[in-house]
């Protein structure tokens, strides 16, 4: 892999004087300030939750889901690669023999503790079967009890793929 050398800023005379660049920065800040004062409709801040975000894309890492095969059965073969890759160790799997002839092995239990999850996406990358994805677009997961944040296999299977921007 090649290494790109990035030049360090701050060595010219004007930059060393410090104040001109400060003024430059303040100019940007104040231009936004007055612009927003004149017209509040362009402010980027959302009044969440009354206002929902409209820029969630299909590659946004939301709550996980377990995918299904074409025959509508679970894709996961309980290989534990997601649980191995998980830096938060928040994936809990138990494996059993699969009897329907599609595969040899399947999970009897597959839970993700969303309170421990750091949403890094390592599980999705590790999966050799494309069985776990984070494309549900669910960015807000609110429950009243700690235990409710441990999402079980049926719930994970019930989530659907989120396509495109929310609008």
């Amino acid at each position, binding site marked *: 892999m090649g290494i790109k050398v990035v030049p360090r800023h701050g060595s010219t005379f004007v930059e060393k004087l410090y104040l001109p660049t400060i003024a430059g920065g303040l100019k940007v800040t104040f231009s936004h300030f007055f612009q927003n004062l004149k017209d509040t409709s362009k402010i980027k801040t959302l009044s969440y939750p009354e206002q929902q975000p409209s820029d969630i894309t299909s590659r946004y890492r939301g709550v996980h889901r377990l995918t299904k095969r074409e025959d509508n059965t679970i894709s996961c073969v*309980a290989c*534990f690669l997601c649980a*191995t890759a998980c830096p938060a160790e928040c994936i809990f799997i138990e*494996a059993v023999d699969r009897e329907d002839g599609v595969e040899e*092995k399947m999970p009897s239990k597959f839970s993700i503790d969303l309170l421990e999850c750091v949403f890094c996406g390592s599980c999705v990358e590790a999966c050799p079967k494309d069985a776990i994805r984070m494309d549900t677009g669910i960015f807000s997961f609110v429950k009243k009890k700690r235990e409710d944040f441990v999402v079980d296999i049926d719930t994970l299977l019930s989530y659907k793929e989120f396509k495109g921007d929310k609008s």
Partner: protein
Amino acid sequence: MVTITVDGKELKVKDDVMLIEELLANSISIPHFCYHPALGKDGNCRMCMVEIKGQKRPQIACDTPIKDGMVISTKSDSIQEVKRSILELELINHPVDCSVCDQSGECSLQNYYMDVGLYESRLSTTKVHSRKKVDLGANVVLDQERCVLCTRCVRFTKEITKTRELGILNRTDHSVIATFEDQPLTDPYAMNVVDLCPVGALTSKDFRFNKRVWFLEPEESICNRCAKACSIYVDHHKAKYEADAIFRYRPRFNPKVNGYFICDVGRLSYKIENENRLSVALINNEQNNYDETSKELKSLLAKHKSKILFLISPSLSLEEMLMIKKLEKFYDAQISGYDVNEYDKDFGDDYLKCNDLSTNRRGLNLLNIDENENILKEALSGSEIVVFIGRDDIEILDNYKNIQSQICISSSTPKNPQSYNIYLPVLTHTSKEGSYINIDGYLQFSKAKVLSQNDTKNLIEVASELLDEKVLSCEQIYKDELSKMVDNITFNEIKIQSRKLSSI
């Protein structure tokens, strides 16, 4: 000894063995499937190819005798290409179902693919399919598609167990491993083929899908199922929010005791260990706090001083036996190692199993602990309190009305806990260190220390508390007292390997 040159490095090696043995002994990586030190060469897999100067073609290291002055290359581009082609051929019909295969993580095919393979599949036709998940019996599951036909399992049943159950059926790419007319495997060493199999063709039904192997942490120990005390690895893992548990035993190579194998009964005895790890302290069959129970025990022993009989199991370690001997002196008590239960006349055979089921009966002899039945009877009639240590044969007290209290200090919860006034659990065999003498007089050290999740202590700690002494480690006890009894064999020596005692 002769000198050979391997990849430009000179090595002094033995000249009466095959090349692969010395290469592996010198930590030179040589991919191989069919060669196994216990089964010898077969020369069918062709993976161990090396280049030898002066020879026209690459040679298999497993069937090449060593000659003085050989110049060998194991890493040159041309030999790597040879190995890659052979591996490609081995893998041509392999299902590559590593994600569901229990072998992945300890699979030779996976390792060699990463070492010398790394090719794209060139197969344009469909792969040959054969039977998957064939239950061979004796806890062995066969997957014919994953097999590389190295015949290690076939040679194991032919040469080691001499049962000749497994064989190869059919020809060419329809060749499969099978038993005659699907008759189940029955020999008591059958599960060794699971360890022997370099790929995922033979897997254990007992271990099936329980744990991925890369989570397991191996600890060195010795099996406590019978007096042979084979060397084993204890593979355990503590999953998050769960107790540390043992998932399997594997044989550990020990040329003096068990070679490369262990028996199936010993291999599956890890289940007893897992059960015992859950034992809790009981007073009059009611669950109690560990420290309170141990205090209660102390006061009871003090009350009946000089009317105490310690009935010890011949499976305790030498260090533990020494501590009990100290207790004997401290409480002016009697001690007996007479035990008929740890003996099964139908268990033994002429290989690795023996009728004596205790781990350390020879330790009793070494420490002069009495094993005589008549002396035990005499001691029983003069005692008020009997402490069963590591054993649970309460029926021995049946005709003795003079016994007021029965105490059990053992890793396993008694079969009839209501018969004991106090039950104090101690750490199980794989959770404690200790030295043992096996039936052939080998002094061995068991190192496994699988963590216990509750406050259970080991027997040495319990005894030290009863003696009001500082708790000593096994190493200290060994150095202070044992070493002079066992031909001055040092602690570090038995930590590394089993040592034969001349005095026994």
